[in-house]
């Protein structure tokens, strides 16, 4: 890394870092100065202490919840993409399916959790994984179908002028066109999967998961532990989000290519 790229990276990084540290400092000092009771808002420092103290429990719980969100994420993405292809191949279905999916996506899907629990049992992880998968499915389906169908008419005409068939058009035009849309959906659903997993746990299930750890400790007024659990879950959600960003970067390199300077034009 030469000095110039280092400088440009630093200029991107320092404002959020400064604000982040600022928020933490403000939080810590506000709790101390205004003598806010710990149960309302624990200090970041005591959350950190509890995090270290309960590390084993939290690590285990977030891994259990993590498995549910990852599993649901995988099922939801695969079925969402598959349905998007299906809707693209059968244009008739797409005209009705997309508005339907958009409408269903507007309903509180997590409310299905108790029904899924009744179907698949509360003790295993299938039920909650399917809740996550359903939540993930709709944004993935809607966005990918949009990317596959909303192709510029000239691009299709060009391919037809090359006597290309539907399959070639799918491979050369529709799929690359859908990639940014898919990446967009991925960025949305990655953190959503963690939240959906935690909410689904509210309707019952094994007691070694993050959602339970949070409500249990909150119930005992051990709010700093609850906050520590939230911090761990956030870190997990954040790493999924960063993963989605990386996938976006790698799969759509043309999006991040920089416009040439005027001076290089001939």
């Amino acid at each position, binding site marked *: 890394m030469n000095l110039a790229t280092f400088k440009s990276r630093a200029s991107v990084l320092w404002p959020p870092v400064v604000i982040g540290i600022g928020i933490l400092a403000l939080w810590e000092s506000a709790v101390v100065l205004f003598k806010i009771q710990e149960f309302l808002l624990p200090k970041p420092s005591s959350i950190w202490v509890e995090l270290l103290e309960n590390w084993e429990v939290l690590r285990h719980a977030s891994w259990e919840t993590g498995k549910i969100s990852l599993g649901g994420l995988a099922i939801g993405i695969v079925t969402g993409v598959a349905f998007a292809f299906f809707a693209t191949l059968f244009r008739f279905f797409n005209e009705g399916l997309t508005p339907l999916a958009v409408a269903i996506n507007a309903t509180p899907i997590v409310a299905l959790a108790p029904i899924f629990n009744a179907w698949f049992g509360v003790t295993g992880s299938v039920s909650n994984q399917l809740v996550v998968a359903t939540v993930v499915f709709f944004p993935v389906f809607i966005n990918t179908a949009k990317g596959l169908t909303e192709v*510029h008419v*000239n*691009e299709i*005409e*060009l391919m*037809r*002028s*090359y*006597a*290309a068939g539907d399959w*070639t058009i799918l491979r*050369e*035009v529709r799929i*690359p*066109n859908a*990639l940014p849309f898919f990446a967009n959906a991925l960025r949305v659903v990655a953190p959503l999967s963690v939240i959906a997993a935690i909410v689904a746990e509210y309707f019952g299930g094994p007691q070694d998961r993050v959602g339970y750890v949070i409500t249990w400790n909150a119930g005992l007024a051990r709010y700093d532990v609850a906050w520590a659990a939230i911090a761990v879950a956030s870190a997990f959600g954040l790493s999924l989000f960063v993963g989605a960003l990386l996938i976006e970067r790698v799969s*759509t*390199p*043309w*999006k991040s*290519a*920089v*416009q*040439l300077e005027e001076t290089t*034009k*001939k």
Partner: protein
Amino acid sequence: MSEKNAVSINDVDKIFNETRDDEVTALSNIDLTIKEGEFVSLIGPSGCGKSTLLRLIGDLLEPTQGSVEVFGKSAHQARIDQDYGMVFQHAGLFDWRRVSANIELPLELHGWSKSDRATRSQEMLDLVKLPDFGGYYPRQLSGGMQQRVSIARALSFKPKLLLMDEPFGALDEMTREHMQIELLRIWEETGTTVVFVTHSIPEAAFLSNRVVVLSPRPGQVHSVIDVDLGQRTESTRQDPKFFAAATEIREALRAVEEQE
């Protein structure tokens, strides 16, 4: 210019949404032949069906009545045989392919080997004077550069016919005039036939051997104007013969307007 026909359009009608409430007759009674090696422009007010006519030649649309032949075969066969290349107003490059990969796209679909493709795309980049830009993404280039890449892509498999739909319509005047000279140079070097849709009178006068003036609703051939400016350079734009041709086209277009 040979005597063989590149395109022959025989008594063609094109009706959209036939038998429905919103039926539109886009073209009616079109008869037109274009010789091999000719540069023919289609000009007319909007709604005259000039883009539709171009798409009939390219078999992107089918005529409701009549026939379109390209190099003595049906337009459909000509498309299957890849006898023409197409350039649109918006360069229509694929964002996700680098410039050289865009030029290679038709070659890839025709099953060319990788090394042949690379050689040809470099030749084409040289032809359109962008030798060093193969590795860039289209979005990184200016509009004029993108349009040159689009022409390179259309010419990459050496089609005998080039169909251009207002290719310079979105460019600024200076770039546009520069591109016109470039296009004429490429036309002379490659000997392809060009069918060129435009709404610019000077552009039609400057580029063409023949200008086909279309009248709208329904689209019909109003008149065909022959132009002979010989070898064209920047100074041709000040040539009285150029002005005379432009005036003739302008008068034909006025007559079309009055007809309405």
